[in-house]
């Protein structure tokens, strides 16, 4: 594919009083894992919902696979898989039923059993979603996002609120999908996660991108400019603190 998978320029999203996104630019290259990193309220969810065609931007342009929402909606949707922050599945449907339903929305894709297997939920496939743990629910969301064999995977805070083990598991699944050649756009407020999973990171604060680049480059740049602690390796957390003067609450 030529050109970026996602291209956002000058994105503004204003609600009555709040400006959720305030002139944001980013582009996600095909095949990379791109992270939106920022604290709660930074504008990550709003940006993602504009990108996946759920919200109309107040200003700015969004292109996915080089196409715009509006005319090409159905085409974009069939090539993209999304997991939203806080989406909750029907309690009394089984894992298999939910995945089969999502699979039926797409023109092509793996079988529901294969999808469930990919996210390691085979043993739970006959279980109602209400009986799943937080990590299992998030993996179910991932299976649904993968249902159409997507080129682009968009995951809004896939690991928020999970215990470390569950977060590692989701992280491995994300990396496995990137290694299969999928493009991934994810948001997180965990620094170490962005560092570990993402090829490039946009640090978002108050609706704007305040730093953009490979995690190692961002950390390296920091090393040249400020006093580096020799005991502890510098992290993205330090990048954020040096840029904003604030610490990022890591829950």
């Amino acid at each position, binding site marked *: 594919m030529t050109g970026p998978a996602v291209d956002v320029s000058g994105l503004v999203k204003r609600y009555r009083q709040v400006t959720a996104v305030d002139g944001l630019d980013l582009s996600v290259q095909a095949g990379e894992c791109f992270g939106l990193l920022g604290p709660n309220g930074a504008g990550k969810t709003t940006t993602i919902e504009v990108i996946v065609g759920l919200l109309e931007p107040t200003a700015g342009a969004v292109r996915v696979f080089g196409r715009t929402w509006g005319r090409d909606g159905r085409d974009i949707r069939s090539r993209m898989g999304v997991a939203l922050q806080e989406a909750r599945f029907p309690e009394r449907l089984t894992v298999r039923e939910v995945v089969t339903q999502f699979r039926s*929305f797409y023109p092509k894709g793996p079988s529901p059993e294969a999808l469930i297997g990919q996210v390691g939920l085979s043993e739970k496939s006959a279980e109602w979603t209400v009986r799943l743990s937080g990590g299992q629910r998030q993996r179910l969301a991932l299976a649904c996002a993968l249902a159409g064999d997507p080129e682009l995977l968009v995951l809004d805070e896939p690991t928020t609120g999970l215990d470390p083990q569950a977060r590692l598991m989701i992280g491995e699944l994300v990396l496995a999908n990137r290694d299969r050649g999928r493009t991934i756009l994810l948001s997180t407020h965990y620094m170490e996660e962005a560092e570990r999973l993402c090829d490039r990171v946009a640090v978002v604060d108050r609706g704007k991108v305040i730093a953009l680049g490979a995690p190692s480059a961002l950390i390296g740049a920091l090393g040249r400019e400020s006093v580096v602690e020799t005991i502890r390796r510098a992290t993205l957390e330090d990048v954020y603190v040096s840029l904003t003067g604030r610490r990022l609450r890591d829950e």
Partner: protein
Amino acid sequence: MNEPPVRYNALIQMILCRWRESLRQPEGIFWTFVFPALLAVALGVAFRGNARPDPSAVVVVQDAGAEAVAASLARDGGLKVDRLPRGEADRRLRAGKAAILVIPGDPVTFRFDPDRPESVLARHAADGALQRAAGRRDPVAVAFQPVTEQGSRYIDFLVPGLLGMNLMGGGVWGIGWVIVEMRIRKLLKLQLTTPMRRRDFLLSHILARLAFVPIETVPLLLLARGLFGVSTAGSYAALAAVSLAGAFAFAGIGTLVASRAQSSNVVMGLINLVTLPSFVLSGVFFSTSRFPDFVQPLLRVLPLTALVDALRGVMTDGASVAAVSPQLLVLGVWSLLSFLLALKLFRWS
């Protein structure tokens, strides 16, 4: 991938999931089966005997001459006569447990509320009994032939009303509530990021609803037949057609109710706004003829009135589909208008 086409048909999958969800909700089962059945049984028993007012509860006030008056009244086998002191007698009359008080004396005084039909009947019965006991002879001999006509009892009136109520509840809760739940859970949003067609989404709700019509009607009909001998005078085909038309209209209204609401409180308020007045105004429990004439045309165009009237027409009068076409037309107009408006207003994300 040689998969059965059903598996990957979005509309079929969505309908299947709606069914599974509904059938796995104990609350839903209660409101669909148990509650109407309980209502039918409770009201059917309470108003057994055609909801006939009971004019037989006559109380003779314990006073001079009470014994003679009571004896005279007792000669009419249809009267249940009690003798009580004045205070207790008045309390009974106020509570509606006595139809009339008879106060011995000259003249004998009848104390009753002329607005209560059973009291008026009791007055005539007691008067006649006293006059006959005192020697009046009726110039014309009459004989009585009591009949209990099936189809004219209160339970016969009630069952079509309960069916209509069930179909209305199924539509507004089964669609209105369910869609708003999906909106609150961000499931609607999530599904909109897939190539799912919006048309299929709405259609799945409507079709899933229509498939519930037998579940919402047949058990209640069977119960009413088994316990009270309520039968259907018209054809089952006509009954099915009317039920489907009603379910369709309320599916539209349910979709309209769900079109903008973003919280369960709002949708619950809207649902109550639709259903509670209907219970009173649409002739579910008592005939709409009790309302003044000038509001009758208004009541007739309410969706539940049209549905209940048509169900009653088929069940008690044996009406054909053609005979209830005015009601079907009303339901059709409601379906059309509510769906069009819902589509216009619907908040997708």
